[in-house]
């Protein structure tokens, strides 16, 4: 079903993957398990012969979520809850919900209370990452997740299945990295929208099938040496709606690096296949880049951004702010100052899930890139 998609198909699938996932679930008879960002070890879920789907909001209207989460709650959290309560809840047999901030903690509770007949478990990743206890706790939580899934399904996890799952996920990430490299070096060969659609779909469909599509897409690419592209790096957690990428494509802006949780951070730290699988998954947790709710030092974020900016020879930083994301909002003023002091041009994109009008984003982005070309910011 997902093994022979072209780029156009992938973009359409990324826009609304759920009809396709429904069809797949019907065809295969397999269960679908949803999770929200970040850091749920999807390899574990997949190894139980389940389909892990990262829920990344809905573009359909909010109906029920506002009565559970007020309007000053993170728009991604409200959008995810709406997707589950109003639109796609029946598709999922269970949910694994990570908790990283006050909003996600409550979101898990609300979710569990509203789906009493489904499997719902929390994934309590540590909100500190620099001490030995953090590693201990990641491993404990992975083991608890395995036990919870075992209890629900009434079967033990097969170590071979876990290793195969890790290998499959690593393969997916390796292909995506190659595609990113092509995008970086041959602007216009893959648009921003197409690349981030491949990233998103990779987190939502069966990789055993989708990897075949990705390989075929990669092999079929005709490298372009397009000129007049402005290279930028994108910093933040997620970027939505996907039409934002259209704006960048239209302005001939090429995203050559990012720190998004749904972008490069997803690709980082492939678990090793030559040792204990749980140890390898725990190790991976600490090889990933900065994520504001769990890392306590914005300097690290700045260092990552600076390094990426230098390595990619980008011309500017685009910071994607999700409206009402408290974590970002405490970090941003200082991060912005640090970046500006370094002489790096930065543009903050204010986004909100469910946004339909992007005219303000377009106007501001146009002004920013025009000034960038003019050399005065």
């Amino acid at each position, binding site marked *: 079903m997902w093994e022979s998609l072209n780029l156009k198909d992938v973009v359409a699938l990324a826009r609304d993957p759920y009809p396709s996932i429904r069809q797949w679930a019907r065809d295969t008879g397999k269960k679908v398990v949803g999770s929200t960002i970040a850091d749920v070890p999807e390899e574990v879920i997949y190894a139980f012969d389940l389909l892990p789907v990262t829920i990344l909001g809905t573009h359909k209207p909010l109906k029920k979520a506002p*009565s*559970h*989460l*007020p309007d*000053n*709650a993170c728009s991604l959290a409200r959008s995810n809850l709406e997707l589950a309560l109003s639109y796609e809840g029946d598709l999922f047999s269970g949910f694994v919900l990570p*908790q990283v*901030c*006050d*909003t996600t*903690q*409550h*979101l*898990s*509770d*609300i979710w*569990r*209370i509203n789906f009493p007949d489904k499997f719902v478990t*929390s994934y*309590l990743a*540590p*909100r*500190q990452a620099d*001490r*030995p*206890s*953090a590693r*201990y*706790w990641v491993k*404990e939580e992975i083991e*608890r997740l395995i036990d919870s899934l075992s209890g629900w399904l009434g079967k033990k996890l097969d170590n071979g299945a876990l290793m195969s799952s890790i290998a499959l996920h690593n393969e997916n990430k390796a292909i995506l990295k190659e595609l990113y490299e092509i995008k970086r070096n041959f602007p216009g060969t893959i648009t921003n929208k197409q690349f981030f659609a491949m990233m998103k779909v990779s987190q939502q469909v069966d990789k055993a099938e989708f990897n075949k599509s990705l390989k075929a897409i990669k092999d079929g690419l005709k490298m372009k040496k397009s000129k007049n592209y402005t290279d930028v790096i994108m910093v933040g957690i997620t970027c939505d709606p996907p039409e934002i990428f259209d704006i960048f494509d239209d302005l001939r802006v090429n995203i050559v690096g990012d720190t998004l949780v749904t972008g490069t951070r997803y690709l980082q730290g492939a678990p090793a296949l030559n040792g204990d699988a749980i140890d390898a998954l725990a190790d991976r947790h600490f090889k990933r880049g900065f994520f504001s*709710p769990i890392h*306590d*030092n*914005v*300097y690290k974020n700045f260092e990552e951004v600076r390094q990426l900016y230098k390595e990619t020879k980008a011309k500017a930083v685009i910071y994607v702010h999700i409206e*009402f994301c*408290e*974590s970002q*909002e*405490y*970090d*941003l*003023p*200082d991060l*912005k100052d640090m970046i500006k002091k370094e002489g790096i041009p930065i543009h903050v994109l204010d986004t909100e899930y469910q946004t339909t009008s992007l005219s303000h984003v377009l106007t501001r982005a146009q002004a920013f890139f025009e000034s960038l070309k003019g050399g005065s910011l």
Partner: protein
Amino acid sequence: MNDKLTSKQLSKKITDEYMEDAFHAHDNNKLVGYTTAISPVEIFVAHDIVPIYPENHAVANLTAKKGVELCSVVEGMGYTSHLCAYARSDLGYRKTGVTVTRGIPDPDLFLACNAQCFTLTKWFQVLARRGDLPVFVFDTPEHILDKNARKEIVKYCVLQLKELISFLEKVTKRKFDYDRLKEVMKYSAASSILYKKFLDMAQYKPSPISIFDALIGMAIAVYRRGTQECVDYYQTLCDEIQAKVDQGIGVLPKDQEKYRLYWENLPVWFKFSDHAKLLGSYGGVILTSLYVHAWSFDFDLNKDPLETLAENYVNRFSNSTIEDRADMAMDLFKKYSMNGMIMFMNRSCKAVSFAVPTLKDILTKRTGIPALVFESDMGDQRFYAESQVRTRIEAYFETLDRLGLAQKTAAA
């Protein structure tokens, strides 16, 4: 000497001495540690680190209606208006020096316990960056319903408390004294029992205390637990309230106490006394909230101090599931015979407020009592609509009257 002082005098004396000690900490070779109101401060006390709570200082400024002035300054620095008013007013104080108190001493280090909220961790990180100071995050995963998971969470927290002790030993270059911790724990355990006794005096009819008394009375538990003086203070306070009970003195006279109310959330600090008067005029007394009970710990002195600390700090209401919070609130409803509830959606406090709609649904269903829900902010007056709140309070009491709920006890 102390037994001659009233609780109010004793509170002032303890507070003055504490702040004096804090401002002269460096003169006495002590460090100042900023910490969250819910945090295992017993470790600080045992290691002679002076704990300072920026939240308390923020409360003083917000109660004195300095919120708009201080928050506006911070919004000009790029922080959004929907962040916690404690954090915004504190950052405003750092920028302007404006305060209604003598201020608070600058920190040497930070201890952020996220059992209370995630905001404090981020706020402390902002402050730490300004001075390039160390932050220790005591990470308390949600006290989820799974009993086996709870045991593992406590183990993880004990590990972190050991890391905290190593961190403090490194910063202070002094060995941690576990015997001293045991002594501190004795004081904390004793004062917690007395503090809870004080809060529970709201069970009497008429209630000798309202939540406003509890909010004033809780201050010493927040910043001086782990000391003998804290124990002395609550003994004095309990004795005074017991004397009121013995004389039948209530916040409202017995024949006027129609509604014994539950309050969800922190208070609207700048409307503190107005709310007490307004509710009183309708025969309403707010008796309690889960918030004021957050400092009634149940330390088990027979256990390893780190274990009982971990158990107690991880299971605070603010780190509990909504189901557990509902059970905790129901216990209070039964114990205090409450017949009304005010659910405050506090824009500043996401940690508490995002549970409120669900909690309200559960509590109204389980008690059969309607709830008054209103949205505002605990410290930023720009989010407080005076006439709207008054109208809603008036309408709520009319509803309770119509339903004949006056002086009825809540049914489980």
